[in-house]
């Protein structure tokens, strides 16, 4: 794929109360932003299981954005603090797996911050575009030459059988 043609696919998990409403507001205000993000609504950023992020990456997403209410502003009082903790833990692991910082992002956006959310999306899309595709499944799909080697075995066994004991 030529570099100019690469358009990152980013999965966004937005909390129902702040960030999804920020996305609504960005829409109502006709703020244009990059079409690369595809948003999944969750009730709270606290619902975002690290599994979701891993799943998105394993499916081939180039980045994942988590967005929620600002700390101290959660509609469920304090659940987004748990989001911070899990995010930090997850990033710690992703770092060990060699995934670049910019690919997984935690963004606070209150219901009034449509512009902030839009610019954060743009920034992230730019960053990930610069990093290039992640396409994670490619990491394990390339035990190169394995089919040849596997298919050589029965042939060899058949040949070996010809040899007198």
């Amino acid at each position, binding site marked *: *794929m030529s570099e100019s043609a690469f358009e990152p696919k980013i999965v966004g998990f937005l909390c129902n109360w702040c960030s999804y409403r920020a996305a609504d507001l960005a829409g109502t205000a006709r703020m244009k932003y990059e079409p690369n993000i595809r948003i999944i609504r969750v009730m709270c950023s606290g619902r975002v*299981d*690290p*599994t979701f992020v*891993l*799943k998105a*990456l*394993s499916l*081939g997403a180039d980045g994942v954005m988590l967005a929620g209410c600002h*700390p101290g502003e959660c509609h469920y009082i*304090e659940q987004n*603090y*748990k989001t*911070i*903790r*899990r995010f*930090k*833990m*997850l990033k*710690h*692991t992703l770092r*060990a*797996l*060699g*995934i670049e910082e910019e690919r997984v992002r935690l963004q606070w956006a209150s219901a009034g911050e449509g512009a902030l959310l839009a610019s954060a999306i743009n920034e992230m899309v730019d960053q990930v575009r610069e*990093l*290039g*595709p*992640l*396409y*994670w*499944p*490619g*990491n*394990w*799909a*390339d*035990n*190169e*030459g*394995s089919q040849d*080697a*596997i298919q*050589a*075995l*029965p042939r*060899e*066994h*058949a040949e*070996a*059988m010809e040899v007198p004991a």
Partner: protein
Amino acid sequence: MSDGGAPTPEKGKLALYWAASCGGCEIAVLGIDDKVLKVAEAFDIVLWPCVMDGKVRDIEKMPDKSIDLCLFNGAIRTSEQEYMAQLLRRKSKVLVAFGSCAAEGCIPALANMNTREEIFQTAYHDTPSTDNPDGVRPQIETEVPEGTLHLPLFYDTVKTLGQSVEVDYYLPGCPPEPDRIWDALVAILTGQLPAPGSVIGATTTVCDTCPRTRNEKKIKEFKRTWEIIPDPDTCLLEQGVVCCGIATRAGCGALCPTVGSPCIGCYGPNEGVVDFGARMMTALASVIDSQDPDEIDRIIQEGIPDPIGSFYRFGLANSLLRRKALAHNGDGRVAEPA
């Protein structure tokens, strides 16, 4: 079979195979003690390389689905292992991923944190005990006067059995506990089996069988095992020790936590879980007792220096991401989207 006489028609055929694993699973089979005789009553053993001589070509010649049960332990590290997995899959009615390596990759799969090149570099060049002045490395094909010799291809990424072929049942554990093995054999023999593709085991986690007292959890600091002499009666995790019992499928009887050693997760994830490490990460992070991002960072960085070793010791190959990023995956996509 050379030593068992002609198989009686009603006796089933049993194969046991050993791919990338330590051999512990083989010993675990013997752990069922005299019940092994009952196994012998029920089955003719057609393949068990660890215990008896046998030829792959004999298996190749057997009709498809002529082996009633195959217990396959070990992960898939080489092309030969993958071939055997495919062969035994074809020949067996029931294929069981036996033990952690076959089920989820286990210790061999921690090699997925490195590339084949790095592993070879270490194994054939860098280790102090290596004496290899000519820099010889194993080759897939070697020409000798007598012809061409073949070695299996060493894969970049260790796979689980399930990632290579379709598996009927999984029996987790490193190794599986003898009692659980017997339970599984009984289930298979009596036909009381869960849906194909499922794990034969409990649906709850180690805590369920752990004798320690559990309370509400708030963790200010994670501790490595040598940093603490744990209180004998309280949940280890509450004392800051990273114990994987919360996320690990029950089946062992909480052997490790009972004696003061944290669970390291050998029985794999609970029923329905797609990523063991994610469960550990989220559970531990949720109970960190801080709201200050910097402090949270510190608690994590200092307390869990090796997240892969802590969360994916047994399940890296079976995890959603399976391995560390390969440097060459960055630009070229392997598969173009439709």
